[in-house]
């Protein structure tokens, strides 16, 4: 079977994010970008499934600017077989991403789509769920374990109360959570090989998808700075302050 892994190029998790002076968004110029960490986990999971002999091909896809090629090459260097870049300079919302992915699924006919549960830039946590709905496929989100069966997949989900295991009939959509696996480092020989692996470039219009935004961003601001604390003399004063000033008890 084929596995499709969508990956997103995001601001690197180590970067201290700065808001643009005009409050229209965050500063992305000259900032280190890398693959969304949850997507890295998704790529790793696909690789493990393939290495266990349960998949023949892993296709990675990214929707974003020309530089998203670097992100795709990273996935190829980890071991994915080929890549598709859907090139657009628009900030594409999850619904449009899901529609593009749906069209790619129709072309590539994978049996499994694995993607990160959310991207660390906008934290939407929507694409996987929307894609499953559009495809009318079952979904296993927040996966911390993925086990393939005969035409099925068991997904252990990290839910509020603990772990929930669901059995999905393939084809299905799985979104990866943090504890699913620890992604590998790409080896030098594989980084070199990745250069020669096929990478197709498309545009949203090739899939008949309009990427115009439906949401308007009014303002982006830094979180309020933490006010300095005070030292209280005794428990009684603490309780008084919590009751009268903070109003929390």
């Amino acid at each position, binding site marked *: 079977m084929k596995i499709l892994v969508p990956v997103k190029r995001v601001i690197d998790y180590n970067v201290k994010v700065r808001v643009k002076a005009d409050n229209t968004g965050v500063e992305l110029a*000259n900032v280190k970008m890398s693959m969304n960490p949850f997507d890295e986990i998704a790529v790793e999971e696909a690789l493990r499934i393939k290495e266990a002999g349960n998949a023949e091909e892993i296709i990675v896809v990214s929707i974003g600017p020309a530089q998203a090629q670097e992100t795709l*090459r990273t996935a190829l*260097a980890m071991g994915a077989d080929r890549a598709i870049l859907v090139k657009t300079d628009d900030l594409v919302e999850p619904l449009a991403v899901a529609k593009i992915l749906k069209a790619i699924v129709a072309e590539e006919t994978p049996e499994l789509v694995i993607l990160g549960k959310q991207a660390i830039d906008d934290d939407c946590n929507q694409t996987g769920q929307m894609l499953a709905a559009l495809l009318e496929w079952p979904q296993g989100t927040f996966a911390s374990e993925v086990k393939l069966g005969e035409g099925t997949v068991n997904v252990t989900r990290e839910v509020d109360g603990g772990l929930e295991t669901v059995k999905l009939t393939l084809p299905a959509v799985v979104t990866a959570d943090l504890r699913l696996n620890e992604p590998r*480092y790409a080896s030098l020989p594989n*980084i*070199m090989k990745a250069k020669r692996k096929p990478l197709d470039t498309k545009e949203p219009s090739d899939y008949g998808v309009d990427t115009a935004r439906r949401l308007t961003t009014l303002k982006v601001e830094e979180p309020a700075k933490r006010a300095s604390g005070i030292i209280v003399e005794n428990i009684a004063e603490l309780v008084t302050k919590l009751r009268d000033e903070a109003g929390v008890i």
Partner: protein
Amino acid sequence: MPTYSAPVKDIKFLLHDYFNLQKLEHIPAFAEATPDLLDAILDEAAKINENVFQPLNLSGDGQGCRLEDGKVITPDGFKEAYAQYLEGGWQGMTGDVKYGGQGLPQTLGLLLNEIMVSANWGFAMYPGLTKGATESIYAWGTDEQKEKYLPKMYSAEWAGTMNLTEPHCGTDLGLLTTKAVPQDDGSYKITGTKIFISAGDHDLTENIIHLVLAKIPGGPDGVKGISLFIVPRDIINDDGSVGANNGVSCGSLEEKMGIHSNATCVMNYDEATGYLLGDKHKGMKAMFTMMNEARLGVAIQGLAIAEVAQQNAVAYANDRLQGRALTGPQNPDAKADPIMVHPDVRRMLMTNRAFIEGSRAMTVWAGILVDTTREHPDEAEREKAEELLALITPVLKSYLTDQGVEAASRALQCFGGHGYIREWGMEQFLRDSRIAPIYEGTNGIQAMDLIGRKLPANGGAAIRAYFEMVQTFIDDNKTNDALSNYMPGLEKANGRLQAASMWLMQNGMSNPNNAGAGAHYYLNLLALVTMAYFWADMAKKAHEMIAAGEGDKEFLENKLITADFFYGHMLPETAALKAKIEAGATSVMGLDAHSF
């Protein structure tokens, strides 16, 4: 605990913008090394170094290596980290593709070496020694030897070492006594004791291939009778598998000041089977292949330790609140300002910064010279690069390692008393840094090599080529207004270097002690002029990019400020160095030995 983040941005500026490696595609190693590939390699190397090797640095220092039942055990976590290094296929990066290498430029190898040493010096030395050994086998080995050893060493399955020093013979190798007795089958029986053998034994690889200097009985006396041998720790069977011990053992481990996680061994060879590498009695020549490369590698250790110490000092200076800025509170909401506001803290951090970025440019230049000497299609270019490289190698080795110690010390100073406390990791950096001015030829030896061998070689061709490079730059840019902060200073410093060269030529002939007394100063003078050349040229590039609206403006403007600092606060040292050279040897040699 200290942290480290590989300086990928500065490296990319040097590779893509400043040196523009794409211009070098006529050199085969660079043809494949496209910018996107270099970036991908750097980013991935940064990750494994930051996340896997660096976290073992402090613990490895605390635990050190131990000798159990004649075997060396490396600190906890080293085996697993080495397995990831092996898995990553990093060891063969610059190796010939014919033997399983990746054929990438040595320039890139040097940069990744910097990252690895910054992350974990003691760990980095294990693969580093292997690299040195493979260079020698590649240069001097027979086809059969190359096929036997290189693939397993490029893959990091086997390690390598170099064995020169003996208890009574360090710098003066002519005194060595390790014997190599010829056998009927063409091999030799090696017997003797070697000391200070870095990575001499460890538990990271299935075998260790030692390169050992020894004398074949009946050969010429002194260094002319030395040969180089390949001596595997464990016998390699005909089918390539590893067999029993070959009479090679680690007698003891040295207790030392730093690099605790790297095993420094006394090695005993007891009729161990060895194979001649290169020609009989030409061991010194073969060994210098390894040595020259190793000297550049050590130079980079000075840069690397400065970088990681600096990163931690900067973080601390921004975080630590003490006192108020001289110009009034900068952080009025808190009781004190971060110590970054103090000019004296800035003096230390800016000195380190100018040193680090300037020396990184110099090492990339040296790397390009290495690749040019090996692969440039034009013989004249290869020769010119060889001369410049020979000239600049002792300069880099000595200046970068001396300054590496100073930089680690300045970074520690920023921490005040906490710098002296182990858990901050700063004192480890200082202790580790202190070996680099000593090994691979002490810095005193480097200065003597520069003055006694490199300057006069080939009728002074190298220093003439060097002066031509600097003078051409001065002539071309003298009237460039953007460089008005730099060109007068460069011209003056270059003038001092020329005058000092003349003085040494005139006064060193009549009294060699004049040359010996001035050698260290002269080396530093040459280093500062070279760094000044690169700072001015990098500033030129930064100006051009800013004018064209290219690149990261803040990064480029910071380059200009750092260049200003170098020219204002570091280059003036050249005047003092010239004066010290011209003071000659009289007072240096004046005291009777018994008066000390």
